[in-house]
C-alpha cells in the first residue's frame, strides 16, 4: 500500500467518522441530560434529509434550505419533549423508550406519505461537485464539505458547552439535576432547549448524509442502528465518548471495507463486540 492510498483512505474514513459524529451527537446529548434514549432519532435524521433536500430545491438557495430544515426538525423534537416526554419523567424509563419507539412509525409513515416509498437520487449543488487533489490523489469536494461541517459543529458544541452560561447549566444538569433545580434554575426549559438542539443535530446529520447516500425511507431505521452502536461503544451518557467512537467506526468501516469488502456491513458490530468485551460500559462510560 502506498502512502498516497493510505492518506486517501484515511481522509475517507475521517469524513465517514464525521458523518457518524453528526448523526450520533444529538442522541448522545439528549441522553446525557434527559436520560431518554430517543429511538426516533433515526427518523429525525431521515426527516432532516428529506426536508433539507426538498427545501433547498424549493428555495433554490442552499444555505437557507439547510438552516430552515434543521431548525424545523429541532422544533419537532422540542415539541415532543414539551408535550409528551414531560408526562413520563420520574416514571419507568421503559415508557419513554416505548414512546419514542412509537414515534418511529408515525414519522416514517409520514415520510412515505409525503414523498413516496421510492428511492430518490439527490442532485448535488454545483459547488459540491468535482474533486480536489490532496497529496497527489483526487478527493471529492463533498467529503471536504462534510469534514468542515463536522469541524464547525464540533467547535460550536464545544463553545456552547464550555464557554456559555447555558452550557454550564447543561453540564451541571448532566451531573446533578436536583441540585440545579435547587439553585433556582428552571431546568425544564433547558430540557426543551437540549431536545431542540438534539433534533437540530439530527437534522444536520441527515442533511449531510442525503448528499452522500441519496434519500430512501429505510434510511431512518438503518441510521438508528448506526447511532445506537456508536453511542454504546462510546459509553452511554458520554458526549466525548460518542465523538471518539464515531471516528473509530469510520476508520473501521473504511479500512475493513478496503481489505475485506464482504465484512464491511458487519464492521460496526465487530467493533462493538470487541469494545464491549473489553470494557462493558463503553469507551468513556461511567457505569
Amino acid at each position: 500500500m502506498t502512502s498516497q492510498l493510505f492518506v486517501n483512505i484515511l481522509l475517507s474514513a475521517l469524513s465517514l467518522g464525521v458523518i457518524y459524529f453528526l448523526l450520533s451527537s444529538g442522541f448522545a446529548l439528549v441522553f446525557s441530560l434527559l436520560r431518554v434514549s430517543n429511538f426516533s432519532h433515526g427518523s429525525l435524521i431521515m426527516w432532516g434529509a428529506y426536508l433539507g433536500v426538498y427545501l433547498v430545491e424549493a428555495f433554490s438557495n442552499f444555505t437557507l434550505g439547510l438552516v430552515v430544515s434543521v431548525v424545523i426538525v429541532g422544533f419537532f423534537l422540542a415539541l415532543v419533549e414539551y408535550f409528551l416526554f414531560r408526562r413520563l419523567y420520574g416514571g419507568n424509563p421503559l415508557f419513554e423508550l416505548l414512546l419514542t419507539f412509537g414515534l418511529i412509525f408515525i414519522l416514517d409513515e409520514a415520510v412515505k406519505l409525503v414523498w413516496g416509498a421510492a428511492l430518490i437520487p439527490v442532485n448535488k449543488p454545483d459547488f459540491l461537485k468535482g474533486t480536489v487533489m490532496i497529496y497527489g490523489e483526487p478527493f471529492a469536494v463533498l467529503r471536504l464539505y462534510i469534514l468542515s461541517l463536522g469541524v464547525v459543529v464540533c467547535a460550536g458544541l464545544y463553545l456552547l458547552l464550555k464557554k456559555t452560561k447555558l452550557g454550564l447549566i447543561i453540564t451541571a444538569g448532566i451531573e446533578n439535576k436536583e441540585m440545579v433545580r435547587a439553585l433556582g434554575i428552571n431546568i425544564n426549559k433547558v430540557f426543551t432547549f437540549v431536545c431542540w438542539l438534539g433534533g437540530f443535530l439530527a437534522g444536520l446529520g441527515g442533511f449531510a448524509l442525503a448528499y452522500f447516500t441519496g434519500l430512501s425511507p429505510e434510511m431512518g431505521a438503518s441510521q438508528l442502528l448506526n447511532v445506537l452502536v456508536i453511542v454504546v461503544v462510546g459509553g452511554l451518557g458520554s458526549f466525548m465518548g460518542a465523538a471518539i467512537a464515531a471516528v473509530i467506526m469510520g476508520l473501521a468501516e473504511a479500512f475493513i471495507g478496503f481489505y475485506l469488502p464482504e465484512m464491511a456491513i458487519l464492521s460496526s458490530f465487530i467493533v462493538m463486540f470487541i469494545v464491549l468485551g473489553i470494557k462493558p460500559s463503553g469507551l468513556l462510560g461511567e457505569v
Partner: protein
Amino acid sequence: MSMKIYFQRYWAGIVILIILALLPLFSSEYTKIVAMQIFIFGVFAISYDILLGYTGIASFGHAIFFGTGAYVSALMMIKAGYSFWATLPFVIVICALIGLLIGFLTLRFATIYFTIVTLALGQFCYFLLTNALTYQYTGGDDGLHGIPAILQTKTQMYYLALAFLLAMFFIAKKIVSSPPGKTLVAIRENEFRAKMIGYNVLNYRLIALVISGVMAGLAGSMNAAVLKSVFPSFMGAGTTIDVILMTILGGMGSILGPVIGAALVIICQQYLSSYFEWWLMIFGIIFVLVVLFLPQGLIGIFYRLKDKNNTSEQKLKNENYNRFKNHFLGKCFQLFRRQDS
C-alpha cells in the same frame, strides 16, 4: 370452586374457546391460516411479555429466538430428515443456550444497554442469515421451502396450533404466578430493594430470558411447520417490531393481553393493509396514546370496567356511603318516631 363458579367467572373465555374450536368447521382455508398465525404470534407475544411486562427489560432483538427456532426445525427436517417432534428438544436446548449467551453478554448492564445490544445482535443475526457465506445452508433471502407436512389437513394443524397456544398460555400463567415469577415482578418494581433482600437479580433475569427465549423458539418452529417454509424475515427487525406492537397494544404485564394484541395486529395486517397503506401510522398514534395514557394496554380497559366495583378504594367508598346512609336514615326515622309518639 364448583363448576358453576368457574363458569360464572370465565364465561367469556369459555364462549371464545367454543367459537375457536368450531371455527374450522365453517371457515375458509385463508381464515384458518390467519387464525393459526394469531395463535403462534400469540405465544411469541406471551414470551415477549414475560420479558418486558414481568421482568421489565425491553429486548429489541427477540426475533433472534423466533428465527432460530424456525431455522433449526426447518434445517433438521429438510437436510437431516428428522420428524418435527424430534426437532423440538434441539430447539429448546439451542434457544436456551442463546438466551444464556445473550444474557451473560448484556444483562450485566443497565436495561437500556440490553435494549440497544439486543437490537444490534438481532441485525447481526439477520445479516448472518442472508450472508453469501451461509447461503448453501439457509437459502439466503429466499429462505427454505418444502418442509414436510406434520399433519394431513389444515384443520388438524389448526387444532394443533390452538392446543399449543392454550398449553403455553397456562404454562406462562403458572410461571408468572409462581414464587420466582413474583420475584421477577419485585425486581422490576425495585431492583435495588430486591438486591438488598438477597435475591440474585442477574440470575433471575437470566432465567426469565431463557424461559422467554425457549417459548419464542417453540413459536418459531411451530410457524415453520404451519407455513412449511422459513424466511429470513422471521429473524428480522420487522418481526421484533410486530411483537412489541402486540405486547404493548394488548397490554403488558398480563398474559392474556399480548394474545389479544397479536389478534389485533395480525387481523389489521391481513385485512386492513390492503385497504389503506398507512395503517402503520394509525398504529403508531394508537401506540403512543397507549404508552401515555393506558400503560396496561387495551386489556386494561376491560379490567378497569370489570373491577369498577371491586377495587379496594371503591369498596371503602361504598362502605362509607352505606354507613353514612344508614346513619342518616336512622336519624330521620328517629325524628319521625319522636313526632309520632
